[in-house]
């Protein structure tokens, strides 16, 4: 447990991805099974056990430390686990030493006279003869066995099997045995709050790197595995076979595309080698179906990152009656029309899946590729062959929830440019507002996980742009930690008194070069009007202020922003050093874009009362 805790501690302070990866690899290499497997499970969110409640932990501490002092400390530190880790009285007293030290002596340069002080006062704040008092009075020759430092496996296994009433006793014993960092990590773990600055993906990348495997190779086998993953480690270390996936409907890492930045990029590509289809503004999912050993149908829906989201979409899961896997876009359709991303988000944001939600936000998948059909892996086939297989599969399936993403016909790049500029006239009809560009796939491309350069391209529609005024700036992180690199900007609207005012509409932290960042940073420092911790307010108004041209993909309603709107993927597209702030855009410009996206079909009266 202490090793795992120290790994978490170092990861928490390490901002660089490669350094995190190195720490993780070192840990997995030097830590035996099953300890490292439980650590992997903890970092990928695959542990489940009875979680300890904060109140129970507080009660444990207050048996040992004056509640007033604990309360003051907790307020100061601002984190329960960390406060407890720091304040927990260490029982490793060296008995008798205290009596040996001379209270009149000035502290010498030898460390020994300091050791007894470690034990003392703060930890006996209870005036009544409490636990700490008994401990100190143990006297010379007292010989308590040292408490056993638990392994992570001990902790996980005990938590999985222990009765609720025994939990405090186990926890107290562990806290006694661990060092500060160990206590911190243990408490984060048992309260289900283990956020360590490492994504599940990074942890899997580190495991893969042990055997020279790409992270996608780990993802391939991941869903068939269970903690503590001994077979996985055996495989990556060359001691065992690749784990058989027992999951009849496994996740497969998706193939991703590169962006076409400008039309000139197309000059290098041959239009006859490519197929085009719409780029839908939904979320990418995989539908996987198969039969388990008892012959029962298993249906799974995975997100792009491999998260199992089947539970959130029972309406879609029941459509997975095939044995195979398809790649597609999750969309909300009403009366056969694709609804905007705004509408989809209303379904995604709900925790409880109610019949009403299913009825008002019916989930569909528009399929655009196939991984496997009737148990056969099709990924090695060229796209043109896979497309035929996909069309056949969808045709046989004949389910209203799953349809085919249509091919956009074109002969030349200008043809495709015209379709991208006006999808409605190019066959998309009323679904055009849910289209965010076109996808290009080489007809001969095999399905390669990851983001290979060349076979697939995305050519997004032109972004929206507005001119906004910089209002606040915040320091960035990592490489940019010293620069004011995150900007909150606002647009004009009529204020309560009738005069125009600027209201924040969004925040952007990229889109500029390093040289531009230096100039922006200098601008912020020279025009600061107020400071709020890491945030500075800069001068803004009709006369003073810096105009930023902001590019973005769309607008959503927001209760968080005062303006009531929020942009999707905003970035600084140009710095308008020349433009007077009074000429920046108004909030109404954003509201018009929002209205375009909201021309969806209402699901009925209940929806209106909801709003």
């Amino acid at each position, binding site marked *: 447990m202490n090793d795992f805790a120290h790994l978490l501690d170092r990861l*928490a*302070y390490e901002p660089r991805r490669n350094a995190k990866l190195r720490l993780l690899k070192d840990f997995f290499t030097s830590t035996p099974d099953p300890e490292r497997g439980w650590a992997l499970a903890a970092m990928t969110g695959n542990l489940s056990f009875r979680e300890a409640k904060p109140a129970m932990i507080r009660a444990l501490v207050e048996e040992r430390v004056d509640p007033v002092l604990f309360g003051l400390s907790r307020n100061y530190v601002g984190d329960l686990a960390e406060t407890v880790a720091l304040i927990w009285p260490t029982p490793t007293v060296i008995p008798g030493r205290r009596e040996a030290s001379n*209270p009149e002596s000035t502290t010498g340069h030898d460390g020994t006279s300091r050791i007894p002080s470690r034990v*003392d*006062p703060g930890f006996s*704040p209870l005036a009544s003869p409490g636990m700490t008092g008994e401990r100190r009075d143990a006297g010379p020759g007292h010989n308590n066995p040292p408490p056993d430092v638990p392994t992570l496996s001990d902790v996980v296994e005990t938590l999985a099997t222990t009765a609720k009433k025994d939990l405090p006793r186990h926890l107290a014993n562990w806290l006694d045995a661990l060092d500060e960092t160990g206590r911190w990590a243990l408490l984060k773990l048992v309260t289900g709050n283990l956020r360590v600055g490492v994504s599940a993906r990074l942890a899997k990348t580190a495991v893969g790197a042990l055997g020279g495997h790409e992270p996608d190779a780990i993802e391939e086998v991941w869903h068939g595995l269970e903690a503590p993953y001994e077979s996985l480690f055996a495989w990556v270390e060359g001691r065992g076979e690749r784990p058989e996936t027992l999951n009849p409907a496994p996740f497969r890492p998706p193939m991703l595309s590169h962006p076409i930045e400008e039309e000139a990029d197309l000059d290098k590509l041959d239009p006859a080698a490519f197929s085009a289809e719409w780029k839908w503004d939904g979320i990418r999912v995989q539908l996987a179906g198969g039969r388990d050993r008892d012959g029962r149908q298993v249906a799974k829906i995975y997100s792009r990152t491999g998260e199992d989201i089947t539970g959130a979409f029972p309406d879609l899961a029941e459509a997975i009656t095939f044995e195979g896997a398809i790649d597609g876009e999750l969309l909300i359709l009403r009366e056969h029309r694709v609804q905007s991303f705004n509408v989809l988000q209303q379904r995604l944001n709900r925790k409880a899946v109610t019949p009403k939600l299913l009825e008002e936000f019916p989930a569909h998948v528009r399929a655009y590729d196939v991984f496997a059909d009737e148990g056969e892996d099709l990924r090695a086939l060229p796209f043109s062959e896979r497309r035929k297989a996909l069309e056949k599969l969808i045709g046989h399936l004949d389910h209203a929830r799953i349809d085919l993403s249509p091919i956009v016909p074109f002969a030349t790049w200008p043809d495709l440019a015209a379709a991208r500029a006006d999808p409605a006239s190019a066959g998309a009809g009323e679904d055009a507002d849910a289209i965010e560009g076109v996808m290009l796939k080489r007809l001969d491309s095999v399905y390669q996980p990851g983001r290979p350069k060349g076979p697939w391209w995305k050519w997004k529609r032109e972004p929206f742009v507005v001119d906004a005024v910089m209002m606040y700036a915040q320091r960035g992180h990592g490489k940019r930690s010293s620069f004011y690199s995150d900007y909150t900007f606002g647009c004009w609207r009529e204020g309560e008194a009738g005069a125009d005012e600027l209201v924040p509409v969004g925040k952007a932290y990229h889109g500029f070069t390093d040289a531009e960042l230096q100039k922006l940073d200098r601008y912020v420092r020279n025009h600061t009007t107020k*400071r709020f911790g890491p945030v500075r307010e800069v001068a803004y108004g009709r006369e003073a202020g810096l105009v930023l041209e902001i590019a973005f993909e769309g607008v959503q309603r927001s209760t968080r922003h005062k303006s009531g709107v929020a942009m999707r993927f905003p970035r600084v597209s140009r710095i308008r050093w020349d433009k007077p702030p009074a000429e920046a855009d108004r909030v109404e410009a954003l509201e018009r874009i929002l209205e375009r996206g909201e021309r969806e079909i209402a699901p009925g009266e209940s929806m209106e009362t909801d709003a």
Partner: protein
Amino acid sequence: MPISASELLTLTREGLYCPLGRFHVDPTWPVERALITHGHADHARSGHGEVLATPETLRIMAVRYGEDFCRSRQEACLGEPMRIGDVTVRFAPAGHVLGSAQIAIEKDGKRIVVSGDYKRAPDPTCLPFEVVPCDVFITEATFGLPVFVHPDTRGEVRKLLDSVALFPERAHIVGAYALGKAQRVMALLREEGWDRPIHLHGAMEKLTELYKQEGIPLGETPKVVAAERKDLHGAIVICPPSSIQDLWARKFPDPVTAFASGWMRVRARARQKGVELPLVISDHSDWPDLCRTIREIGAEEVWVTHGQEDALVHWCGTQGIKAKPLHMLGYGDDGEAEPDPGAKPEMEEASA
């Protein structure tokens, strides 16, 4: 009728005042006569009439404020009683920074000790704290919460050296207050065998030079030349806390940011500052040492000047010791002692 504590020392707008001796202790405003415990800017200000302090503190003040920091100065010899007005005053070492002293004020058998800032942990750059028994003990409480237990400094310095060994291509930028902490870190590095140059930010230079003149060996400490920053692979660089996140620090090769402070014990504090390598090294007493000191002094009454006074006053109560907070303003930056990112480096050494 024995004299009462409040006749001996009272609180005025300028700070603690002894009416019978007609002097202030560590006043935060200019006064006619000031007794100064140590050279940190929140305790030692310029513009007083007469100043009485240890010779080291007087020299520190002269380096920071110029030779004309007061009208006249007088040296206090540690341990020697001096008569001032109707009271007897004695300076005793406080173990905080070079020249730091406690000031005992006595009349008719009643003794008050103003400890200033102090620590009990060993420090190669200053004399150790002396326990001076008294009736009223005036203590700080910068780290006055039981969560603050400072580890052995040796382990903290080893963390820094281990990191340099692990990343020999990266510069290690260590934020440390310019008076005391910086020189202590240098001395600790030398004790752990680091014999390469320790590079200094310009704001560290004068006080480090003074420490060397006072006979504290710190080895080679060149000032960083702006143009050479990019070549300082594997170097240890000491700078004011405000500079670790500055553009100044970004010009070093792939810098590792460290900060030597007692606040680094709290993870969120370290992360807020973007510190990658927190070094828990403090010139203040931690909680166990605050409590131990109060017990050893054996005072009937404890006054708490600044820091986390609530917890320490509460603890005194549980021990049957009378205690009260003085709620003094102007010390330790509101008790948080958090350096303001916009503060000038030379003003920052006062805290933690």
